[in-house]
């Protein structure tokens, strides 16, 4: 851990008579009691105060990425994370994992946790499906298992969460910072806001409003101090075409300290391994077609994965970019969605009664499974977060800040991306993933990329070779009038860098020139095995990911990494 360069907050007025003093920005820091001052620092760090809390756009004057260093870390050690830039501890994790408390899964919490740790993860989120049985039994019953696992595997952070059936939409991960009320808050959230529990999954304005209310509930629970933090990320967002662009925007705007992103890549990445030795399905189980519940504007292309990634993320100039071009912070992740794993050798415990017990009996040794489409947590998909410490809050803060990059199959080991003033070559200078560089208009700006290449074999026993890195640049054009917009016309691959083999670390830089208008940059890289012109045309993305072939896509032979964006705002 090193120093942290300081950003300045621009706390906009947010006062009210019923607001506690730490939340009331009309009360200066100096007038707070030490306890209140500490509380304010915490809220500010968590992005829950002032501009960080209110802003749904980087244009509005900063967001959670500008959190100052936390000063009450809830853990110690580095958990195997690698502080490759000397500033952050990079911790790999997975926020989408099922256990025997899901009706379509089977493993114990500790089974998932032990594998996650062995596969190199530092943090995981247990996300069993929300439904009537789970809200009644599972959400409480899983907690002692999680608490026990935290004690047993001390260098792994284990969050309790939920796979939320978002009213009117798809699934999403919801998770909270551990604490005395973690179960109570999750249970109340699930009971009141889960689409399966309440029969509100079908699309309608009323159900969309319930989803918004659920997100606001979580934010309120944090502000009421019942929990230390809560996050929501949309899972497999394009799988069924039911997450419309206006819903994604509305979630984010409902509370940008809670609704922070989506799976850039879905789980189930083994599902497209060819039969008979594999499931022979669509990669990520993306194999559906439009239904009456789908957003009618989505093209058929959105129902398939592209290089293992969701169409919203994989399309340069597509839905994700349309949010970033608005200046709307919205981050991507990559997870296992592990239910039942490919080449597993266990089966559900005999004599299980899921409905009565809220869980399956502990798994037992069983026949080899070649028809399951999931990897263990960390085996294939990883979400890397740049935390300021190893700890529950620090990881959530880092996710909220968007200091996140994702990879498949261990394609790279580390990523340090910066946008900096041309004359500022100090390590750690400028803005990194999820951040914003504010400059005087006309200042010369450069993007720098330092990438640690894979040096050891991945979990398929080969050393992945990064072949190409693409830098994607787009103008920030401000709020859209049509909330269902899912294109960003100015965004394109601005530069591509070939990676010469045989090196441990590669560095690239790309001058943005004298920046006189708001823009953003993001990065993507590939093993170069499969590519095709992007959906917006070869002029936008000459060598993008190719659509995955149903039943014939080996995930180990088509590896990509993606970074979250950095904005440049001239004034």
């Amino acid at each position, binding site marked *: 851990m090193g120093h942290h360069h300081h950003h300045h907050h621009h706390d906009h007025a947010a006062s009210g008579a019923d607001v506690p003093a730490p939340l009331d920005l009309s009360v200066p820091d100096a007038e707070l009691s030490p306890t209140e001052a500490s509380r304010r620092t915490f809220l500010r760090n968590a992005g829950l105060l002032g501009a960080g809390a209110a802003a749904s756009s980087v244009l509005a004057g900063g967001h959670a990425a500008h959190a100052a260093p936390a000063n009450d870390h809830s853990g110690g050690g580095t958990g195997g994370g690698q502080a490759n830039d000397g500033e952050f501890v990079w911790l790999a994790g997975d926020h989408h994992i099922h256990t025997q408390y899901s009706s379509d899964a089977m493993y114990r919490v500790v089974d998932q946790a032990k594998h996650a740790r062995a596969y190199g993860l530092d943090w995981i989120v247990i996300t069993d499906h929300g439904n009537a049985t789970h809200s009644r039994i599972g959400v409480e019953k899983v907690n002692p298992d999680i608490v026990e696992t935290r004690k047993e595997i001390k260098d792994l952070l284990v969050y309790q969460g939920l796979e939320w059936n978002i009213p009117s939409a798809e699934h999403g991960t919801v998770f909270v910072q551990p604490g005395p009320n973690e179960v109570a808050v999750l249970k109340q959230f699930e009971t009141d806001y889960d689409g399966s529990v309440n029969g509100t999954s079908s699309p309608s304005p009323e159900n969309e409003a319930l989803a918004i209310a659920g997100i606001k509930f979580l934010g309120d629970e944090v502000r009421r101090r019942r929990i230390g933090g809560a996050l929501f990320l949309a899972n497999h967002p394009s799988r069924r075409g039911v997450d419309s662009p206006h819903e994604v925007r509305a979630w984010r705007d409902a509370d940008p300290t809670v609704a922070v992103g989506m799976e850039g890549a879905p789980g189930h990445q083994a599902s497209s391994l060819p039969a008979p030795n594999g499931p022979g399905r*669509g990669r990520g189980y993306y194999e559906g*077609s*439009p*239904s009456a519940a789908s957003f009618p504007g989505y093209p058929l*292309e959105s129902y398939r994965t592209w290089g293992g990634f969701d169409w919203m993320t994989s399309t340069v100039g597509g839905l994700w970019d349309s949010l970033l071009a608005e200046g709307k912070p919205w981050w991507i992740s990559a997870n296992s969605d592990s239910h039942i794993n490919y080449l597993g050798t266990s*089966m559900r415990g005999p004599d299980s009664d899921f409905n009565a017990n809220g869980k399956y009996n502990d798994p037992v040794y069983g026949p080899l499974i070649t*028809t*399951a489409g999931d990897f263990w947590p960390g085996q294939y998909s990883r979400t890397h977060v740049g935390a300021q410490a190893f700890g529950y809050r620090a990881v959530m803060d880092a996710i909220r800040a968007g200091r996140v990059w994702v990879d498949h199959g261990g394609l790279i080991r580390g990523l340090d991306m910066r946008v900096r003033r041309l004359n500022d070559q100090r390590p750690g200078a400028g803005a990194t993933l999820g951040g914003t560089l504010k400059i005087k208009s006309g200042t010369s700006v450069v993007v720098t990329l330092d990438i640690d290449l894979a040096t050891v074999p991945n979990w398929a026993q080969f050393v992945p070779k990064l072949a190409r890195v693409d830098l994607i640049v787009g103008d920030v054009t401000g709020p859209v009038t049509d909330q269902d917009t899912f294109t960003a016309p100015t965004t394109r691959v601005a530069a591509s860098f070939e990676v010469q083999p045989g090196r441990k670390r590669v560095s690239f830089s790309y001058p943005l020139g004298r920046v006189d208008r708001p823009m953003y940059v993001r990065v993507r890289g590939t093993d170069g095995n499969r590519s095709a012109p992007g959906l917006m045309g070869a002029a936008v993305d000459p060598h993008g990911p190719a659509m995955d072939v*149903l*039943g014939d896509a080996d995930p180990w032979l088509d590896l990509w990494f993606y970074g979250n964006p950095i904005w440049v705002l001239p004034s």
Partner: protein
Amino acid sequence: MVLRQPDLGPAILTATATAVTVIGISLGHADDAAAEHWLHDVVGVADLPGLVACTHLVRTPRPHVAISLAAPDGLPDLPATPADLVPAAELAADEHRAGRSGRAVRYPGVDRLVGTLTVAELLDFSAIEQVIMLGGAVPEPETPVQTRDFVRPQWINGVLTLITTAVGPGRIGPFELPDPTPCCADKH
């Protein structure tokens, strides 16, 4: 032109240029599978020669699947469309008649589209007029099509079109799968 025929209640009749009537009906089916089930089991569409029966995704007054039927020799009596779904039934009939949209479940030759056929055979055996790859490319006539015994072409610009994707080296298959993995599936 939209006609209301008294003996069919609110079911909607329209006339195509070739004078084949197109009937729209909407019973609020939740998804394609439910609509197809109704077509097979209730209407008995398999026994109606020359029939083209389509499903249509409709968002109002609530998301559901409407149905259109076009048969040269007429259709059996069909149940009445509930009043609130009449616009959906009208929409389905209009879309079918104009060839703008509609996913064909029954059409001449559908029963011959089983196993693996070439593109040329598929066009020869059935009423499908065009096979394209997702993205617009046109496959060669000799390209094998893995039908999965489930071929659902759709109306695009007046042409009954099958959209396909690659399913392996040199092989294509319909974009739509008969058995997509459902969400929260109990996979074992």
